[in-house]
């Protein structure tokens, strides 16, 4: 019966591959929540599924946990097909978004719950529960009830509960969303450290790109039930595959134009938004005259009062807004063409008295290796 659900997932040959999802589809009634997702996660890696709400990332996670039946496609964990295995028989544990701690049980009983289902001996349960609670530094709270703990403490208990069974795969559903912003970043680093220490393969779902970039070894960007790009945070940030990814991971200044010069070592792109062509010092595989999009990250834009030399890669404009963020300042600059660009200038580069202010005339410029050419 399982075979009728072809295509059969095949081992890719990557010796480190631990989780393989192939052509996974989930349809609810007449809504397609997940349309053909394939991905591969390596052993002991933290993999993040990043997307805005309704993109299908939570449905994908719920299929990995076994709470939703896949409409078609296969999930392989450590070489074993778990697509049709019920959640209580999967070597997969999940840390829920709201933690889902049992309110009528103590912290220790919450952590012990999973082991009790396995019929582990009492003495061993006790040892493993305290081992897990020690790991998250919650052993002294073992007799408390969940509602007597702070949000951060509840999260640690939830983590201990999901790790105590030593799952092959740990799922994290928006792990930080229930925490205050102040403690989020500290917790992200702490959580990564614990997961590293335990050595467990993780798939995390989040809508927060900073969280994904802080914690994940690799990430996949999802929209409309599909993965549009995956790679390390750095790869995805530096080489976004589409305007959507460029705008979703970090912010981007986007220009639309046509290729006017295409040489192996450079291209020139003319855009209505810019007074002179964009010069990019790497080739593209697109034909002349083709409409393309160019993304330039705000921190790649240089803001200065003097007119840059050369005939490429600069534009004149007026400062329309400045946001001082401490480590850097965000400039909104309205170019002569009417297009507004965003530039992030490090505080160190801004001298106290000469920093451009509101309505000042400035020149923005960028290096030829800064733009990324996108075709979609």
């Amino acid at each position, binding site marked *: 019966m399982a075979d009728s659900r072809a295509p059969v997932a095949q081992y890719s040959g990557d010796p480190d591959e631990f989780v393989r999802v192939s052509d996974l589809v989930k349809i609810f009634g007449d809504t397609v929540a997940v349309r053909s997702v394939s991905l591969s996660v390596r052993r002991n890696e933290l993999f993040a599924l990043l997307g805005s709400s309704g993109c299908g990332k939570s449905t994908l996670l719920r299929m990995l946990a*076994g709470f939703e039946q896949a409409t078609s496609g296969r999930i392989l964990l450590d070489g074993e097909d778990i697509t049709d295995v019920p959640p*209580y028989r999967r070597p997969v544990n999940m840390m829920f978004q709201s933690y*889902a701690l*049992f*309110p009528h049980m103590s912290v220790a009983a919450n952590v012990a*719950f999973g082991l009790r289902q396995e019929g582990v001996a009492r003495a061993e349960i006790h040892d493993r529960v305290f081992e897990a609670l020690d790991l998250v530094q919650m052993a002294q709270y073992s007799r408390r009830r969940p509602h007597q703990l702070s949000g951060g403490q509840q999260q640690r208990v939830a983590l201990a509960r*999901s790790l105590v069974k030593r799952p092959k795969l740990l799922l994290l559903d928006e792990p930080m969303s229930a925490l205050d912003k102040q403690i989020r970043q500290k917790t992200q680093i702490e959580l990564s450290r614990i997961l590293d220490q335990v050595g467990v393969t993780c798939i995390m779902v989040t809508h927060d790109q900073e969280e994904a970039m802080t914690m994940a070894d690799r990430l996949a960007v999802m929209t409309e039930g599909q993965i549009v790009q995956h790679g390390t945070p750095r790869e995805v940030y530096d080489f976004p595959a589409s305007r959507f990814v460029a705008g979703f991971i970090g912010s981007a200044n986007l220009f639309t134009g046509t290729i006017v010069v295409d040489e192996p070592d450079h291209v020139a792109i003319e855009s209505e938004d810019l007074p002179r062509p964009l010069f990019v010092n790497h080739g593209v595989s697109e034909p002349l005259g083709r409409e393309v999009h160019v993304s330039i990250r705000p921190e790649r834009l240089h803001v200065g009062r003097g007119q840059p030399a050369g005939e490429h890669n600069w534009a004149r404009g007026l400062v329309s807004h400045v946001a001082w963020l401490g480590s850097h300042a965000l400039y909104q600059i309205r170019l002569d063409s009417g297009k507004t660009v965003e530039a992030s200038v490090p505080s160190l580069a801004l001298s106290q008295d000469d920093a451009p202010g509101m309505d000042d005339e400035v020149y923005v410029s960028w290096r030829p290796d800064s733009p990324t050419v996108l075709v979609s």
Partner: protein
Amino acid sequence: MKAVRARLPAPRLLAVAPPYAWLALVLLVPFLLVVKISFSDLQFGVPPYTPLAELQDEALSLTLHLRGYALLLTDSLYAATYVNSLKMAAVTTLCCVLAGYPIAYYIARSAPSVRGLLLLGVILPFWTSLLLRVYAWVGILRNDGLLNNLLMGLGLIDSPLEIYRTDLAVYIGMVYAYLPFFILPLYATLAKLDLRLLEAAYDLGARPWRAFLHVTLPLSRPGVVAGAMLVFIPAVGEFVIPEMLGGANTLMMGRVMWNEFFTNADWPMAASITVVMVLFLLVPLALFHRAQARQIAQQQEARP
């Protein structure tokens, strides 16, 4: 400013005063009157009982008659009635728990679109008077009633089942009448239950029935307790159903009270039966209240 506010009654007190005043007026005062009557003796006239205090020849005499209570203790009929009433209420409650839990669970888990309809089905009987509905049961359970005619027509039985005017008929009637009181509070508890807790249980390796046993059941306990109390307390004093469906030997407090009041016109006796019954009811009520209060206190315990 603070000192002035401290001398004024707290706003909370103002808010809770009216309901307490109302309860005192309609519950406490009548009950005290009943207590007073229970310590008087029978006499002919209006009212049909002796006054408690009498001023005669400049002497105030206070007479406490204990005839009612003495009779309660000496006549085994009354003790048997109390025990039987408690037993019948307990069995009714148990049946309501066993039948009502699956119904409440099913309604709480059904799609929101049909949930309203199912709940309406539970409440629908209330649109007809209880008296009519019990009469309908008379029609169903009688020897020549609907049930017996149907079973005999199908050839399942040869002679009619003797249900009408037995304890069984009373149980059927009481479970029927009180089931909604058990289902509604339990439904409210089950509907509030966070389904992610069940998913967490499955995720941690619990099969569905173990998840039910260790998560759903303990978390629905407040609903079960509340529903069981709502069934048990009125069932102990039930009058209409045992009177209409029960046999002559179906002993229940409600019937005995009725007899004392209206057949024997023995108000003091009826009043002492009532006082003892209320005490029998107040004990479980108080226990229930304490359990609830403890639970709420546990949930609201200060954070560390």
